[in-house]
């Protein structure tokens, strides 16, 4: 089937998927014990006030009607109000989302930058010392919890060596002195676009440790999958043909083998974004990175349920969208899929 129809079909799936997730979040938010109207009014409020609030919030209606109201609010972008500071969740999400996006993209970039060459080398020098070392490294990268890695990196590179800062996104005095216009929301990109090298440097310096922590397990997965795929591809007849026709080894590896090996690796990238989003809750807390993850972590401590639900919904939407993009990329990479 043609690429356009495939994209449309997959994009259309986003709707029922989000609907399904909204049902789950709606059910979960109604399982919590306690009366939301009473909680919002406060313990000393009169019963009539609480009842009035109950009617206003629609809590006296049947569940399907309440779900309908919930969805109509969702569609308008109303994610509710924080229990803690009574500000709309949507505003908080807007503030924190770019920081998490920047961290996730940086981690993904690092994983690909280091993971793919590692996998290729592992495959080319299969069963040699290098291969065994990097396979062990991959195993270690997955086995150590991401929050532990962050703490250890801080211990070594901040506390002992003083090479990197302990947290935050940038040196605030630099940004105050010469503010950077927010075009993309990604501080590094915006600083680059504005030509503000000091802020760019500071932002990259702050981004380093959190991105490295978050990238480790994805890096390991990508390296592993690239290795497996490359080993399989290098055994294919067409590689032997290419070599026997006199093609230089570099062209064989990167022009032919890697392009085909990238196909299963792309799938891993899609799945990994889910781990990156989840892991950011932990990494952002450790490095005081002002993103959605840290916001979610704090919301848990304060039991701010609407905030937790809001972050989960947004993260799910992002995850589904990235998977869609990955699938489209997959179809572009592998024409055989299109013909199915």
């Amino acid at each position: 089937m043609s690429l356009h129809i495939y994209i449309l079909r997959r994009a259309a799936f986003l709707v029922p998927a989000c609907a399904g997730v909204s049902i789950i979040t709606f059910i979960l938010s109604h399982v919590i014990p306690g009366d939301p109207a009473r909680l919002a009014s406060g313990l000393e409020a009169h019963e009539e006030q609480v009842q009035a609030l109950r009617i206003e919030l629609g809590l006296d209606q049947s569940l399907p009607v309440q779900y309908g109201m919930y969805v109509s609010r969702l569609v308008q972008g109303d994610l509710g109000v924080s229990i803690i500071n009574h500000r709309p969740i949507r505003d908080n999400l807007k503030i924190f989302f770019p920081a998490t996006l920047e961290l996730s993209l940086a981690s993904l970039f690092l994983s690909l930058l280091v993971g793919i060459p590692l996998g290729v080398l592992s495959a080319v020098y299969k069963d040699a010392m290098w291969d065994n070392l990097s396979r062990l490294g991959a195993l270690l990268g997955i086995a150590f919890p991401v929050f532990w890695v962050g703490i250890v990196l801080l211990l070594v590179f901040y506390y002992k060596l003083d090479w990197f800062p302990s947290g935050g996104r940038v040196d605030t005095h630099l940004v105050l002195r010469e503010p950077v216009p927010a075009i993309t929301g990604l501080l590094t990109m915006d600083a680059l676009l504005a030509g503000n090298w000091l802020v760019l440097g500071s932002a990259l310096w702050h981004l380093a440790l959190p991105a490295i922590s978050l990238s480790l397990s994805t890096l390991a997965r990508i390296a592993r999958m690239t290795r497996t795929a490359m080993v399989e591809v290098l055994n294919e007849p067409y590689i032997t043909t290419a070599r026997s026709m006199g093609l230089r080894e570099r062209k064989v590896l990167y022009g032919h083998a890697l392009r085909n090996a990238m196909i299963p690796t792309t799938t891993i990238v899609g799945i990994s974004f889910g781990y990156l989003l989840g892991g950011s809750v932990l990494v952002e807390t450790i490095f005081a990175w002002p993103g959605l993850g840290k916001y979610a972590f704090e919301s848990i401590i304060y039991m701010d349920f609407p905030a937790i639900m809001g972050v989960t919904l947004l993260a799910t939407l992002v995850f589904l969208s990235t998977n869609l993009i990955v699938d489209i990329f997959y179809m572009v990479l592998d024409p055989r899929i299109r013909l199915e």
Partner: protein
Amino acid sequence: MLHHDDAVVPHQAIRRPLAVAGSILIILLCVLALFPSAIAPYDPIKIELSDRLQPPGSANWFGTDSFGRDLFSRVIFGVRISLLTSVTVVTGAAVVGTSLGVLSGYLGGWVDEVLMRVTDVFMAIPVILLAMVVVVVLKPGLINTMIALIVVWWPVYARLMRSQVITIKERPYVEAAVAFGAGSWKVTVRHIVPNALAPILVQCTMDMGYVVLTGAALGFMGLGAQPPMPEWGKMISSGRAYFLDAWWYPVFPGFAIASTVMIFNLLGDYLRDWMDPKSRVI
């Protein structure tokens, strides 16, 4: 009836020394889980403030925490919590998931469609976030963590079993059984399921490690086993407050988590080579 193409062939495993090592390590873990007091020199819960935040030494191999408790003993007692969590979660998720998967794969039609959509929705939510949400709703605690993780993990098994059933359904020996008059239930239980189990068991073993990781993440967030229970993730979280002065506090529990994950991963890798060579990661 186990058909030779699909079923388990044990004799090759004995030749692989690492697989044997992996099995020994698992047994060691089980021993630590069942008899922690045999190895742990101190009481994991008794507070001894005069010994707080001692560095690793001959008296305390891993040092002490902020309450003066021996970290080595706490880590050993923590094996029990982690192993219990992973066994319960993997068993629960596998039982629920494979049952639904068998139904879905065998019956097909709208049952299959509905189940696929439901698993799609569950799998669209990042693992840690979904687990986090469920635990917050149910209130933090060890049992609720296990429930949350089962809720997160069952779709993987449903999908895996479904695809196995769909493939095996078409095999000649199943057709033969049906042609001989075997009823649906008999066909399913005696022919399809036993031959479908190999990848499921491999997945179970690998997942044991990943459940420990996710459980530790929940523990780090304060959602898992509550203090004074020596849960590794919570220990790292508590240790974080002191890590500049007492590096041993968060570091050693992390090694415990990693070792457990690696042991399960190793075993899972070799189980896969043994039982299901077709899906080998070379």
